């Protein structure tokens, strides 16, 4: 076999050429007299794109609204949009680019826990600031992340309180196999132990799974009081269809979902899910003036067939919270903005929300909703007051074993 100088050389030329092309990306000045660069990182391709694109739209809407209103500290927000491609390494890689090459003042994005975990060290070592908009499994409080979605004591625990109030004492747990459902179910099991409730089963299926007849028949046969559903994405479509075929109705056995919002209801088919329950902090139907303005602006921009959901709303709030913090600090510097976070309050579509500086989470109200026959979600229960975030569940005795 010949030594392959020509081939090696060709390969080298091609490689160097491509590498240099990749490197010639223009380095932008993060903050100029007129503009401030921010990063947006969402999965625009891959399995998560369907969810994350809606969040990107909401962030873009907020940025455009703020720019139309004079920008932040007199500067127009210039977003740099990156594709996380539903892949953790890509998120970490793109985040690094946003912070190092684009000098982004702040970054909005992330959805899956894995993408957040992957970006966390990047933001910590570059001292960046990430606004993460999705409800998650808690157990985290990085000084370089602001969590604008709910942590477990603002979503899962209120949902359990609600089910208990309704007299549901036996729960069937079904979830996709990844970190959020597994951690959520650990919390649910600990809660059930402490409150005399019964967990009849704990089932996991791979992400994207579509065959649920074994589980739905099991639910029909064992008749638990309620099902706690942490399935993610498309699996919900199959699950609810097959649950209906198995003859389980919302009246007999309500399914409480924590990852099904307005966006997903449409895909599942309203008929299949009407009457079932969800736990969030915001619904499109949430009744206040700010939400009216938000829903109108969103549908005007993206079409009347579009719906608004909790993660979209949290992402939309992120931009306004960042603006308020920047203005309070009178600086774009991450350390200054962080110091100004505590107590920042805005009127959001979900109501008035306040940032908690210690945890960098948002103090927000929990809401249980019921899917109506128009495919929207009606609020049927609200926590008596906004709940202070407790990502490590330190205020709950029964959770002592969980946080070591």
């Amino acid at each position, binding site marked *: 076999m010949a*030594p392959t100088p020509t081939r*090696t*050389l060709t390969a080298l030329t091609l*490689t160097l050429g*491509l590498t240099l092309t990749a*490197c010639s990306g223009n380095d932008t000045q993060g903050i100029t007299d007129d503009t401030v660069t921010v990063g947006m990182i969402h999965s*625009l391709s891959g399995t998560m794109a369907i969810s994350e694109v809606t969040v990107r739209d909401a962030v873009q809407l907020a940025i455009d609204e703020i720019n139309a209103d004079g920008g932040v500290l007199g500067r127009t927000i210039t977003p740099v949009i*990156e594709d996380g491609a539903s892949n953790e390494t890509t998120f970490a890689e793109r985040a690094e680019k946003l912070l190092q090459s684009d000098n982004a003042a702040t970054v909005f994005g992330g959805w899956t826990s*894995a993408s957040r975990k992957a970006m*966390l060290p990047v933001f910590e070592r570059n001292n960046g600031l990430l606004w993460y908009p999705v409800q998650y499994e808690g157990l985290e409080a990085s000084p370089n992340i602001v969590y604008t979605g709910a942590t477990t004591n603002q979503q899962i625990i209120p949902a359990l309180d609600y089910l208990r109030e309704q007299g549901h004492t036996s729960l069937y747990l079904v979830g996709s196999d990844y970190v959020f459902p597994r951690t959520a179910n650990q919390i649910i099991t600990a809660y059930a132990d402490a409150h005399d409730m019964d967990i009849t089963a704990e089932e996991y299926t791979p992400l994207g799974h579509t065959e649920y007849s074994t589980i739905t028949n099991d639910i029909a046969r064992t008749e638990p009081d309620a099902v706690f559903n942490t399935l993610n994405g498309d699996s919900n479509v199959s699950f609810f269809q097959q649950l209906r075929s198995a003859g389980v109705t919302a009246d007999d056995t309500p399914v409480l979902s924590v990852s099904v919002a307005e966006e997903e209801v449409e895909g599942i088919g309203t008929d299949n899910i009407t009457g079932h329950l969800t736990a969030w902090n915001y619904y499109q139907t949430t009744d206040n003036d700010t939400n009216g303005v938000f829903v109108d602006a969103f549908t005007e921009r993206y079409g009347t067939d579009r719906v608004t959901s909790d993660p979209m709303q949290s992402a939309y709030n992120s931009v306004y919270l960042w603006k308020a913090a920047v203005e309070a600090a009178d600086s774009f510097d991450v350390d200054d903005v962080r110091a100004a976070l505590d107590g920042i309050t805005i009127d959001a579509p979900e109501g008035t929300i306040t940032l908690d500086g210690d945890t960098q989470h948002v103090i927000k109200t929990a809401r249980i909703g019921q899917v109506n026959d128009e495919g929207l979600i009606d609020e049927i229960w609200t926590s008596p007051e906004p709940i202070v975030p407790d990502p490590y569940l330190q205020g709950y005795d029964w959770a002592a074993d969980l946080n070591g």
Partner: protein
Amino acid sequence: MTTTEPTPTLLHRLRGPATLAALLAAALLLLPQLLEPFRLNLLAQYLCYAIVALGIALAWGRGGMLTLGQGVYFGLGAYAMAMHLTLQATAADPLAPDLPPFMVWSGLTQLPWFWRPFTSPAVAVLAAILIPGTLAALLGWSVFRRRVRGAYFAILNQALAAAFVILLIGQQHLTGGSNGLTNFPVFAGQSLYTPTAQTTLYTLTVLTLTATYLLFRHITHSRYGKLLIAVRDAEDRVRYLGHNPTWIKTLAYTLAAMAAGAAGALFVPIMGIISPTLIGVIPSIMMVLAVAIGGRHSLAGAAAGAIIMNTAQTTFAETFAGGWTYLQGALFVLVIALAPQGLAGLATTLKNRLTRPTPTEPDPAPAPAAERSTP
């Protein structure tokens, strides 16, 4: 080597090593100066995939074994290193408990037995190469002995990748689940994220890639290399000639796995993360695809294929955040349609056209006798 190379002049013989030396010098001296740290880090990541590609070129290009599950061996190497780094990070943080946070939360009170050896960096590095090697040797031996080959072997590899991912996700309290392992800032007391550390890691990766290339090149030029090609093209005839194809194939498969393991171990400190989605079925296919694009019959081509594919992916994604996947798909289709032997095959053809207007002798590249019969 002398049999296929017509009249090797001194110049001819020196050209290979000279190119390699020039490449190495450019990679080690020039690029760290030219590229900003972030780009250098990306390039180091691509080079890790190039090391995997070398292994695939050996097992698939030379040995005809379609290794569609290299993500498993890459992942084993990566997890071995990540476990060590996680333990280091836990030990370095005075506020943290003695266990990695995900274990504490899962209710573990002490370190699982199989994590303990990984406190030692030497064990981690050795394990990153030997565990993939051992698994591949065992699997290869049992499978090749029963003469499983072609599509069945490829499917077996895919199943292995799928099973490995399910295992990692299901054992969240032991493996970190779908989040994988991440957030490890220190190695041997040094911060991993200083420019010096990143340049060191990059240099280490370049050297590993070079060493792997030289080793595999030596192997393919040896008597064993000829046997491997013979087994690929006519396994039964080799058997009738008195050789045992089982060990010939197992050796190449094992070496490929060890290269993937080493690449995984380098990947983790460079990228700072390993998770099941990086090593499952689709990443495994992408690793093979890179080799198909570069040219599976050429080691250099395969390595270049991995670098080119990953660079193109980054460039496309940066330029067209929304539609880059279409461009990437188009690139695959184009290369496979126009250059079925990959870019290396295309280069050889071009060279032959340019230097020999009337090709009188067959292509020196050891393309298989019957191209369609190989998987």
